[in-house]
């Protein structure tokens, strides 16, 4: 049934009316945000900052009078307040330029969520049972202070572990100063879909340890290796704007776009050519293209300069990467490689993009370096229509680190959780849950009880982004250095407190107080931003930092290019190919990204752009493979790796290679509000604990699996439209 039929059918039979009475959330549109249509009143639009990813999009928030459920002095009731009703992209923001992605639009549900923690709580039941009793703020803070004092009295300050959600913000500096003053190690970040491999590669190739910014609007040819840059990767709103301009702004020239990936993403579905490639061989394809460009004398090898140096055989013309060899390695026909190389060289300016799964392989750094070298060869670095690096806000520190933790050896005596959910976002083999259960004291600042904070002994809930000072330091997506900072747009609904302010208070109350130079978080923000920028930000929620410099590799000094290339050029996978015949590809979901927004019902009910699935997990299987294994759409399938099994309904797709099994990440939370708890399965749980060879980052795409049909469809695959069909297409190779 396609979408049109579905709409007709619901009109004809009133199916949806019948469904509505069943009471399952998937049959409803769940709002719980104050109405903003047909409501009389004057709206005020206030600036804010989107909290849901690191892109750092600016917001403008529609604030109007509304009745809201609030908690005041321990009493719940309905009060008329100036309430946020709608989020939009901030007009003229250098990154999102007035746009906002679906996740950003849904962020408003964080504030009004019925399962938000409304006041401080102490564990009542057994650990992990998620039973808490309310306590007063003074008691909660005293409890945290006494726990930290106990740690200090035993001389175990270094046993304090602070885990934070991935964010890049000045807020981190408060955390860093607190930890340093206390004598604890720097905060750790848990970032499943982190980009540290690419940052490292960029430091080696270009001397800039930073995510790249693309001038897609002026590109004539884009080749993307695995990067879902229109959906989830890097700065998607900025990239969508640029992409739109590339394809449609000029009525005479429509840029060409090629996507290289084994499973068609939302980005791949937009491409002129979708090139399925063997997982982990994207770097070899990039070098195959470079080889042809050099060999055909379209560009000289030394045009790549420094970026060519880390690649073995670059100056000799990459003779190991002839089209025939590339066909063997990557599974891309030699003729097609030749045609792609021609297009890249002919259509100027051309740019290559790499991100996502190709860098989550054991040879991720090699792949990133290969694509960087291709970009340099094409002359697209720091050029119009190419790749560049956003000047970074030199007034901000990158305080939090993405430090891979050795969970088995975790010896922390106290754990502070600041929005991180490592129990969900880690392979089962890391045994994170067991490690956390062994920590004697856990306090959480998060707004929701999730898989990890369910183990907390004490919860000191933070405000949501609309109720507090909020800031971010974007890393990419614009040509100028940007700082986002905005004050609260509404009064807090509940008895929550801003976490940075709580840390400042705790610091002062310790037996051996930690001297922090600020009394409040906003004082710290104001002090760290140049005066002119501050007054701009007060008006619009962001400002340009004028004296910005290019960020260099980690320190002020540029990283020297390595004389020899990376050692690991070919990917290795966990699991024997005979026993586990399929590559396993978990991917960032458009709605939930890494799972951190699965509790927002607007995102649960948003049909996935490709499969139209909602409220569910699914397993994408190639149509031919499914037919061979007698698996039909919706049948339950067991996906088994060396680490375990997950069971989910099959989605039969023409847009995936026959030897690849893909699953969206985001569902499968044990505990995460009424909307996400025990819904679907978590594919990360069966990912093998394999790491990228040179950076130690989790290689989440380097696991092999086998599949087996478990039973017939049970209705757990909820599709808005219908199946995906392959349409007859022109001959693949011209």
């Amino acid at each position, binding site marked *: 049934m396609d979408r049109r039929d579905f709409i*007709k059918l619901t*009109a*004809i039979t*009133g199916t949806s009316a019948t469904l*509505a009475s069943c009471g399952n959330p998937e*049959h409803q549109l769940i709002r719980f945000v104050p109405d903003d249509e047909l409501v*009389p009143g004057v709206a005020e639009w206030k600036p804010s900052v989107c909290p849901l990813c690191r892109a750092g999009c600016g917001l403008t928030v529609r604030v109007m009078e509304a009745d809201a459920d609030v908690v005041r002095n321990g009493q719940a009731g309905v009060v008329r307040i100036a309430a946020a009703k709608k989020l939009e992209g901030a007009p003229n923001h250098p990154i999102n330029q007035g746009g906002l992605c679906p996740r950003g639009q849904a962020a408003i549900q964080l504030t009004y969520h019925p399962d938000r923690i409304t006041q401080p709580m102490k564990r009542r039941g057994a650990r992990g049972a998620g039973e808490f009793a309310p306590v007063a703020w003074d008691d909660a803070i005293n409890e945290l202070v006494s726990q930290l004092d106990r740690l200090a009295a035993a001389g175990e300050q270094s046993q304090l572990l602070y885990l934070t959600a991935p964010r890049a913000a000045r807020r981190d500096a408060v955390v860093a100063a607190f930890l340093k003053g206390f004598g604890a190690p720097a905060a750790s970040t848990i970032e499943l879909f982190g980009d540290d491999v690419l940052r490292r590669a960029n430091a080696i190739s270009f001397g800039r340890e930073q995510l790249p910014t693309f001038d897609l609007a002026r590109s004539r040819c884009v080749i993307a290796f695995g990067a879902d840059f229109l959906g989830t990767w890097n700065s998607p709103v900025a990239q969508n704007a640029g992409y739109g301009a590339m394809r449609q702004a000029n009525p005479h020239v429509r840029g060409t776009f090629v996507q290289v990936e084994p499973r068609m993403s939302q980005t791949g579905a937009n491409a002129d050519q979708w090139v399925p490639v063997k997982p982990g061989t994207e770097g070899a394809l990039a070098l195959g293209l470079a080889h042809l460009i050099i060999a055909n004398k379209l560009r000289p090898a030394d045009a790549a300069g420094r970026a060519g140096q880390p690649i073995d055989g670059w100056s000799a013309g990459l003779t190991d990467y002839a089209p025939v060899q590339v066909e063997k390695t990557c599974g891309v026909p030699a003729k097609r490689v030749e045609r792609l190389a021609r297009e890249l060289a002919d259509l100027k300016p051309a740019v290559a993009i790499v991100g996502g799964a190709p860098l989550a392989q054991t040879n991720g750094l090699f792949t990133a370096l290969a694509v960087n070298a291709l970009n340099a060869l094409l002359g697209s670095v720091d050029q119009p229509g190419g790749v560049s690096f956003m000047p970074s806000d030199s007034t901000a520190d990158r305080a939090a680190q993405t430090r891979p933790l050795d969970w088995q050896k975790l010896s922390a005596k106290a754990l502070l959780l600041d929005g991180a959910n490592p129990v969900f976002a880690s392979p089962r083999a890391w045994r994170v849950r067991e490690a956390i259960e062994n920590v004697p004291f856990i306090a959480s600042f998060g707004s929701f009880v999730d898989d990890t904070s369910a183990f907390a002994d004490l919860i000191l809930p933070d405000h949501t982004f609309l109720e507090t000072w909020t800031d971010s330091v974007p890393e990419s997506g614009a040509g100028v250095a940007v700082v986002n900072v905005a004050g609260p747009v509404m009064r807090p609904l509940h008895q929550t407190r801003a976490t940075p302010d709580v840390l400042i208070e705790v610091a002062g109350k310790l037996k051996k107080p930690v001297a922090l130079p600020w009394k409040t978080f906003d004082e710290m923000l104001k002090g760290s931003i140049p005066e002119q920028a501050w007054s701009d930000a007060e008006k619009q929620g962001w400002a340009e930092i004028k004296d910005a410099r290019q960020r260099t590799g980690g320190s002020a000094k540029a990283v020297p290019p390595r004389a020899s290339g990376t050692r690991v050029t070919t990917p290795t996978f966990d699991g024997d190919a005979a026993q586990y015949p399929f590559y396993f590809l978990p991917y960032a979901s458009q709605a939930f990204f890494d799972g951190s927004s699965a509790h927002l019902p607007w995102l649960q009910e948003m049909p996935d752009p490709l499969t139209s699935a909602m409220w569910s997990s699914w397993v994408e299987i190639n149509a031919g493979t499914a037919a061979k294994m007698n698996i039909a759409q919706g049948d339950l399938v067991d996906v088994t790796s060396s680490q375990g099994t997950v069971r989910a309904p099959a989605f039969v797709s023409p847009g995936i290679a026959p030897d690849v099994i893909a699953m969206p990440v985001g569902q499968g939370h044990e505990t995460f509000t009424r909307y996400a708890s025990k819904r679907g399965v978590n594919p990360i749980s069966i990912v093998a604990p394999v790491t990228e060879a040179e950076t130690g980052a989790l290689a989440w795409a380097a696991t092999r699996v086998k599949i087996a049909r478990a039973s017939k469809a049970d209705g757990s695959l909820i599709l808005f439209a219908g199946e995906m069909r392959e349409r007859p297409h022109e001959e693949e190779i011209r």
Partner: protein
Amino acid sequence: MTGVAAAVRSAVLVGCAAAAAGCGRAGDAQTSSAIFTTAHRSVGDAARDFFGMRPKPVQPIPFPHKTHIAKGLTCTDYCHESVTKGPVAGLPSVKTCMICHDAIAADRPLIQQITNMQKNGRDLGWQRVYGYTQQAHVRFNHAPHIRANVECATCHGNIAQQTVAERNVDLSMGFCVNCHKQRNAPNECVTCHF
């Protein structure tokens, strides 16, 4: 084609009646936005909705648009101020009216009516004039249109000559698509439909 269309239409009428009769909650469908449903309160409602016949909106007061425009107010000054920023244009509340009418024309019966409303803590229950049916699956966003310098009158007619706003422009799909084509605006399905 006509035959098919007629068959579908009659099926819709029958289907809606069945749904309305068979499910106690279907009757509330139009008033509850929490539940996704295309069912209607009665067969008559379904038929009228299907043929695009909507009752003329009854506004809480006969607001004279032309008087206000003649005084030099623009649409976006106070009453529809959100039109440049987001999907919803915004509607004035009694407070909005009283910004000016606290002093101006305070002795007129209509203004006194509004003043009383404010005293009694009541507000203006405006009814929708334009808008799309649920089945159209259209989510309209004002802001990009205003940013692209589309005049309010393009879609809403000449309000300067109207008392209460009347629906006198047929916002059919053809109307939208033609304008998008002329202005080289995106015409993909998902631009307007969800």
